Structures are given as structure tokens and as C-alpha cells.
């Protein structure tokens, strides 16, 4: 009775720990390959285009609407203390430190982790990964490293663009609807924004990019057989990347908060 109950708790716990261990080993191998040749420059450039450039519209639109909504909310809250002048500053800080990287990261997770997992999973199921090995090409180097590198480098850039667009979203609402003077809105934003506000968001972006590509590659490479296996891998990659981003966001915020 008690034994069965313990087993019911223990088995999933072991499964989760086992999966985390396998993921950690995979991550360690991927990172160790980052530094050792050969490097596949053409693949890397292709992934920068796929992951970075083609995610711009999604991240830009997310930031625009988020910045606009944020300005409205902060206006509503701050007007209770007659402190409406903080709207530009708080909107900007909220955007660059938290919502820009997190929402941008989640959107990229949905777009990129899924497509990486589906692509690599399909390659696994159709023996293309085995074929790479028979062609003396390490799948870790050829598939995983370019994707992880591209996502880790391009997400901070996406976050930076999202920051600017998000602040512009707040500015549009601030000047168009809330009666702020355009020049003083921008001046308020600029004067009170500190370097580390932006910097911490960019560091978060890099971490989130790494997580997104890692989850996509890991679940793709370990995909089960058949279309069903690939479907499951895709779903798991998006869920794991999203949870990973939110957890990492909390941890990084704690670290930055303490610093």
C-alpha cells in the first residue's frame, strides 16, 4: 500500500531527474563542440537568417502591442497618485528589463523551438541523422551547434529591436491618447533609463536564445519513431523551452537584483 504510493511518486520523479540529466549531458556536449572545429559557417549563416531575421516581425509586433498596453496600465495606476510623469520611465524599464526579453523569448520559443524540433525530429525519423554520420559529419556540430549559436547571438539583437519598438508603442499611446508632449516623453525615457536596465534584458535574451535552441535540438534528436514521435518532440520542445525561459528569467532577475 505505502510501497505502491511511494512508487507512484518515485517513478515520475526518477523519470524527471533522468530527463534533466540527459538534457544536461546534451547541453554540455553541445557547448564543448562550440569551441572545437570544424565549424559550419554556411549552416550558421542560414540559421541566423532563419532564427534571427525571420523572427523580427513576430518579436516586433509583440513588443509594439506590449509597450502600448503597458503605457495604458501604468498611466491608470500612476494617476491614482497623480504621478503620471513616471509613465515613460516605468514603461521603458518594464519593457527592457522584463517584458521585452520574456515575451520576445516566448514568441521565439513558439516559432523556433517547434520548427527546430520538427526539422531535426523528421531528419531522425527518416535516417538523415544516421546518413550524416555515415558521411563523416557529426550531427552535433552540423545541426546543433549552428542553431544554438545563432539563437544565442540573435535573441539579444531581437530583444534590442523589441525594446525600441516597445518604447515606441508606449510613446504612441502616451502622445496620441494620454496627452504627453512627444519631446518630454522621449526625454523622460532617455534620462532615467540606465545602461544596466537594457544590458540585463540583453543578457536574458542570450540565455533564452540558448534555451530555445537547446530544447529544439534535444527533443528533435531524441524524437521517437514515426509522425507521432515527431509531433510529441515538437510539443515537448515548446513546453520545455517556455518553462525554461520563465524559470531562467526568475533566476536571472534574482541574480541581477542581488548584484
Amino acid at each position, binding site marked *: 500500500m505505502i510501497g505502491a504510493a511511494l512508487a507512484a511518486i518515485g517513478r515520475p520523479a526518477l523519470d524527471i531527474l533522468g530527463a534533466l540529466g540527459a538534457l544536461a549531458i546534451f547541453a554540455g556536449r553541445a557547448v564543448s563542440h562550440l569551441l572545437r572545429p*570544424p565549424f559550419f559557417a554556411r549552416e550558421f549563416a542560414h540559421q541566423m537568417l532563419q532564427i534571427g531575421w525571420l523572427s523580427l516581425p513576430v518579436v516586433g509586433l509583440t513588443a509594439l502591442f506590449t509597450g502600448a498596453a503597458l503605457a495604458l496600465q501604468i498611466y491608470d495606476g500612476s494617476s491614482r497618485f497623480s504621478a503620471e510623469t513616471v509613465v515613460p520611465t516605468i514603461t521603458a524599464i518594464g519593457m527592457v528589463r522584463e517584458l521585452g526579453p520574456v515575451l520576445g523569448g516566448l514568441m521565439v520559443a513558439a516559432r523556433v523551438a517547434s520548427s527546430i524540433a520538427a526539422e531535426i525530429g523528421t531528419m531522425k525519423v527518416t535516417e*538523415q541523422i*544516421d*546518413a550524416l554520420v555515415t558521411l*563523416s559529419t557529426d550531427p552535433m556540430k552540423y545541426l546543433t551547434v549552428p542553431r544554438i549559436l545563432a539563437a544565442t547571438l540573435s535573441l539579444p539583437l531581437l530583444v534590442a529591436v523589441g525594446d525600441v519598438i516597445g518604447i515606441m508603442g508606449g510613446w504612441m499611446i502616451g502622445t496620441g491618447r494620454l496627452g504627453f508632449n512627444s519631446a518630454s516623453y522621449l526625454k523622460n525615457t532617455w534620462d532615467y533609463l540606465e545602461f544596466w536596465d537594457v544590458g540585463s534584458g540583453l543578457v536574458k535574451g542570450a540565455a533564452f536564445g540558448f534555451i530555445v535552441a537547446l530544447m529544439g535540438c534535444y527533443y528533435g534528436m531524441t524524437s521517437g519513431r514515426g509522425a507521432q514521435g515527431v509531433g510529441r518532440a515538437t510539443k515537448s520542445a515548446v513546453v520545455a523551452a517556455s518553462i525554461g525561459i520563465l524559470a531562467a528569467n526568475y533566476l536571472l532577475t534574482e541574480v541581477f537584483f542581488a548584484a
Partner: protein
Amino acid sequence: MIEISGLSKSFGAKQVLRGVDLSVARGESLVVIGGSGTGKSVLLKCILGLIRPDAGKILLNGAPAEATREAFLAQFGMLFQGGALFDSLPIWQNVAFRLLRGSLKRPRAEARAVALEKLARVGLGPETADLFPAELSGGMQKRAALARAIATDPKVIFFDEPTTGLDPIMAGVINDLIRGIVTEMGASAITITHDMISVRAIADRVLLLHEGRVQWQGAISEMDVTSNAYVQQFIHGRPEGPIAALR
């Protein structure tokens, strides 16, 4: 060239290989036959290091596989069952894959010329070179995959069910190509198949695998005269015999 002894592999409780011994000499073409699910693909994947065996020894060119695998793979080509062409690359870049990166890297124009030559060898014209795999029919994909397998004139080639899913005429074409290529390149080959026409076209020697064990092996000429019940049942496709039809 390839020597295997006592090779075993289980997946969970399921024993797939139970002590397989085989050897392939230089320039020899071995065909492994057996029903579906008897572990033929697992056997090849153990040799390639894609699956780690539970027990047994694999020698490649006389040395343990783990130590020599990289050198072995450098002179190796494989035709996968589904072709396994890379969807994201045009056909010529699939064929010239090794020539475009890594230690065998050559100028792009030269790599393309080699790809076109190999495509011609398998009967595909230059107009297919810039198409993507999804734009080719099944038989053409198989041929392109064959061109990729022989692109760098390998010393060892594996063929995994080369004719499965092809119409009989295309199957005949692929069989002829394999025989011709193996002979003219002097390569050693292991072919997995359950197509008896392929066996007769390709094999120097035949090995029958059943329930993870080698049940019979011998020269192709001995195959029709042996009294081995497994072989008799297999080549005549009889439902009754030692190989249970229920799978």
C-alpha cells in the same frame, strides 16, 4: 575488411541480436536476408556505431571498431532504405556533401562536376542537379541517394533494402547499378534485403538471419541446393516452415 563475432543487442526486454558472427572480405558482396524485424538494420547500425552493442567484437580492417571508425567511415558509403537525402539541400549538394565540407573539401565547381558525373552514372541527367529531393519520384530519389553513397569512391558500401518500395523495373535498374558499381569499384558491400531478385543480382555470398542468429551462410551458388530449411522456406516464400509467419 569487416569481422564480427558474438554480436548481441537487446532493446529493453527484447533480444534482437543473439551472438552474430560474420565476416566480409575485401571486394566481396555479402547479402543478408531474413524476415522483417529480425535485426538486419540493427546489425548494420552496430557496425557504424549508430547503435552500441551489448556484447561482441567488431573489427574493421583488423582493428577494433571504436578506434578505427573514423578512418573506416572516411572510405564508406551507405544507401539508406528511404534514401535519407537531406531535404534542405539540392540534389547535387546532397551527392557532393562530403566534397563541400570537412577534410575532403574541394572548390564548389569541382564538387559540382563530380556530383554531375555520379548522377550520370546512376542515370540521372544534369537537369535533376538543382532540384530538391521532394521534387523527385521515389525511384529517382533512390538513384540520387546511390550517387551520394558512391560520390567519394568508397571502399565499403552498405545497401539497406535498396529495392523496397520500387516497381519491379526500377528495382531491376537499381540491382544492376549496385552490381555494376560494386564490381567496377572493387568495393566490399553488405546488402540487406528480402527481395530474392536482388539477392541473385548482387550477392557473392548470402547470410540468413533469423531471431538474432545466423541460420545459414554460403556462396550464392550453394543457396539453391542447400537443404537448410530456413533457406528453402525463404527462397520459396512458403508460409509453413521454421520461420513462423506470425510476426
